[in-house]
């Protein structure tokens, strides 16, 4: 038996070595850009490769509700001295944000501030996130062997803990479908990845959101129904808007508070003792907001805000954007809302952080905002199917 176990042990070591050789040495850079992991990886890649000009960089994490448009905030760099960037990825959660930050800022010295958004400062869980399996798909490229225990145990259910451990240990299994698709269409994938690396930041920078708005929506809160809805949404969209606007207020849950303390707390702890400040702010919540939301003075967010290096923005900072004409659905700002939000955020950052260091105040224009962008979008790239639409640049209002 000893001989068998020795050989099996050696086989396992060789297997992990092969797995690491294949998937921990750069495979993540050729993930399918339209996959969950590849999409997040694209944001991370863009941010890592974004040329930094000076130390007054401010990064926002978040999900699709973060309406930051850097092509708007860039207009204010000369006024505020701060350059805003975003790795807000639709569908991500605080757990994802922590690992994304670790990836883009390994030495914890890249940013003057990290902006962390909340839908509410209270511990009311509108959507269960602690055991979200989707996080595994998002985070597969970012997880390291050292995360085995902490990441796996952050799930509360054992099957998910097992799945999380597998994602950390066996990268090949995590990327199995992606790898098979890569084998099937190797050249197309490589071409697509090259294109996304070259143009992805440009597409995100110039993307245009929903142009419709919800002007005219009226809610009868007593009857808990929408009485008037604009005409443009189709039936499915109307249903979605109803669900979002009328969603009930969930109770305060200790488990959600624990989740926030675990992951937002991890972000705060990560930057403790550095020059980077962590700013908590509440997002504009919707075109119509249910009245009478109780406030919890001792919520996890408020407790964390007492830690050094944390700035807690006034909860009602963005209430003025909670207007139907600035929303494209029940939760997300539309194009106009995004512009308003970005303009306000650019100004508020200076207010929250104070004046930028004088020595690094200068105009900063990223390459994709420059005149020569058309030269970079060569005809060779235009022939390849673009994973994202390439919209016309909208004038900034």
């Amino acid at each position, binding site marked *: *038996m000893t001989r068998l176990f020795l050989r099996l042990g050696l*086989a396992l070591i*060789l297997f992990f070595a092969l797995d690491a050789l294949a998937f921990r040495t750069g495979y993540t850079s050729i993930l399918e850009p339209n996959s969950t992991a590849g999409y997040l990886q694209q944001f991370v890649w863009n941010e890592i490769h974004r040329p930094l000009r000076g130390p007054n960089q401010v990064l926002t994490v978040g999900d699709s509700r973060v309406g930051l448009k850097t092509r708007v905030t860039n207009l204010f760099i000369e006024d505020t001295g701060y350059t805003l960037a975003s790795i807000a990825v639709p569908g991500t959660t605080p757990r994802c944000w922590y690992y994304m930050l670790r990836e883009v800022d390994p030495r914890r010295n890249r940013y003057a501030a990290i902006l962390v958004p909340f839908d509410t400062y209270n511990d009311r869980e509108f959507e269960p996130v602690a055991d979200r399996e989707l996080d595994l798909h998002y985070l597969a490229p970012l997880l390291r062997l050292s995360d085995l225990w902490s990441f796996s145990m952050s799930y509360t259910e054992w099957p998910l803990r097992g799945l999380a451990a597998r994602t950390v240990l066996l990268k*090949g*299994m995590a990327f*199995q479908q992606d790898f098979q698709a890569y*084998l*099937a269409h190797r050249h197309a994938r490589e071409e697509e990845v090259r294109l996304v690396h070259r143009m992805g930041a440009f597409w995100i920078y110039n993307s245009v959101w929903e142009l419709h708005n919800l002007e005219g929506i009226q809610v009868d809160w007593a009857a808990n129904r929408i009485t008037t809805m604009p005409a443009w949404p189709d039936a499915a969209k109307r249903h979605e808007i109803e669900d979002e606007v009328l969603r009930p207020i969930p109770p305060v849950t200790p488990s959600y508070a624990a989740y926030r303390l675990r992951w937002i707390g991890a972000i705060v702890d990560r930057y403790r003792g550095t020059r980077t400040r962590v700013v908590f702010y509440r997002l504009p919540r919707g075109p119509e907001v249910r009245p009478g939301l109780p406030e919890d003075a001792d919520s996890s967010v408020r407790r964390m805000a007492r830690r050094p290096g944390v700035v807690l923005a006034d909860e009602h900072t963005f209430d003025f954007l909670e207007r139907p004409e600035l929303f494209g659905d029940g939760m997300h700002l539309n194009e106009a809302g995004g512009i308003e939000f970005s303009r306000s955020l650019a100004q508020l950052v200076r207010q929250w952080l104070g004046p930028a260091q004088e020595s690094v105040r200068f105009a900063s224009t990223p390459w994709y905002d420059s005149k020569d962008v058309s030269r970079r979008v060569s005809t060779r790239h235009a022939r390849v199917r673009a994973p994202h639409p390439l919209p016309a640049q909208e004038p900034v209002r």
Partner: protein
Amino acid sequence: MLFHTPQFFLFFVVVVALFYGLPRPFRKYILLVASYFFYMCWNAKFILLIVALTAIDYTAAMWIRSAATPARRKAALIASLAANLGFLGFFKYYNFLASNLALLMAKPPGEWALAIILPMGISFHTFQSMSYVIDVYRGEQEPITNAIDYALYIAFFPQLVAGPIVRAHNFFNDLYHWRAPDAGEQLRGVWLVVFGLVKKLVVADQFARLADAYFAHPAAYPGYFAAWSGVVAFSIQIFFDFSGYTDMAIGLAQLLGFRFPENFRRPYLASSITDFWRRWHISLSSWLRDYLYIPLGGNRHGRFQTYRNLMLTMLLGGLWHGASWNFVVWGGYHGGLLAAERALGVAPKRSWNPLRISFTFALASIGWVFFRARTFPASLEILGRLFRGPAGHLMWPHWQLWIALASLMLAVAEERFEWFERLPGTPAWVYSGAIAVCLLCLELIGFTGRPVPFVYFQF
């Protein structure tokens, strides 16, 4: 509980721990309980069937030994065979016969149909049981006096579901002269389990997708290139599926100290159909030879009797696989080819002849059309597509082509050098490296979380 699921591996680890952890007298009880548990995981009620068949054949063998006259001995044999074939006939062939009878009498096919569940592995364990009773009757096997031992022979979980069909003298020799597997046997056992998993999950299941797609909608893939790629995909699937299962069964048994015979010997490198049947499902073909072909007269009564015997054996062998005219046609097709080869004097050659091997593979693949297609008309339609129409396109993605080519190269190398057999004796880094590569293949291609049942489980 399929062999390629985590549940099975957990079960096996527990069984091995108990088997080697308990004193030797208790070990066969552990194996019997584990085997019955394994069977009951599929359907607990049907354990009564396997126990009943075990009791019948055990008693019949004892009667054969103690019977005073040859007539009584024969009566005991017939009773046993009738019970086995009766159960097999009812569970496997009743609806087939009923629907054909209904058609003959111009009634709807489902007129007399019953909702019958086919008990898992019934074709295998009844054949195993019958061979034991026949051997006892022939005086080639001493009857087993210990009912537990006999029950274990019938229900032993590594080969219960889909063979290999183990002869009684082999099994009881291992049981009564049990010795722990030595280091080489342990390494071989583990290698066979891992390699069997690779065959099943990395190769068979990948080609199953292509075969399933083609056989479900052949019209969606026009052209003979597409037809051949769909049919060859099934040829690859069925071989790697069944031989993968068999490798695992042999490996698992070896880890428990039981040595099962070889069941496949690179059949797609056969140089004739006669050679093919010496390499394909060897335990079944040798069973058919010993208990059907030879008793029918074999090749001892002239040329035409031999052809008839070949045809009858293969027709029944085809029918053994499933209750459908397609299987009968498949058996008849192979019977016809065997007879034709004998008539033409085509002898299996040991020399390497790629042309003959390719031709034999093509003939075997054409036969698989009847095996895989749902109905006889569907088989004919696909056969037509193999030889006419536009060229069309290959259905295989490039990387599956590479898998097929790699498999072919490994098979050729194995045929000439028997590398895999010699693997346990190689230096540690070679053996461990081979296991590591297999694990990587399983990780990247094999484990999809959606276990595809083994093809032969339905038989």
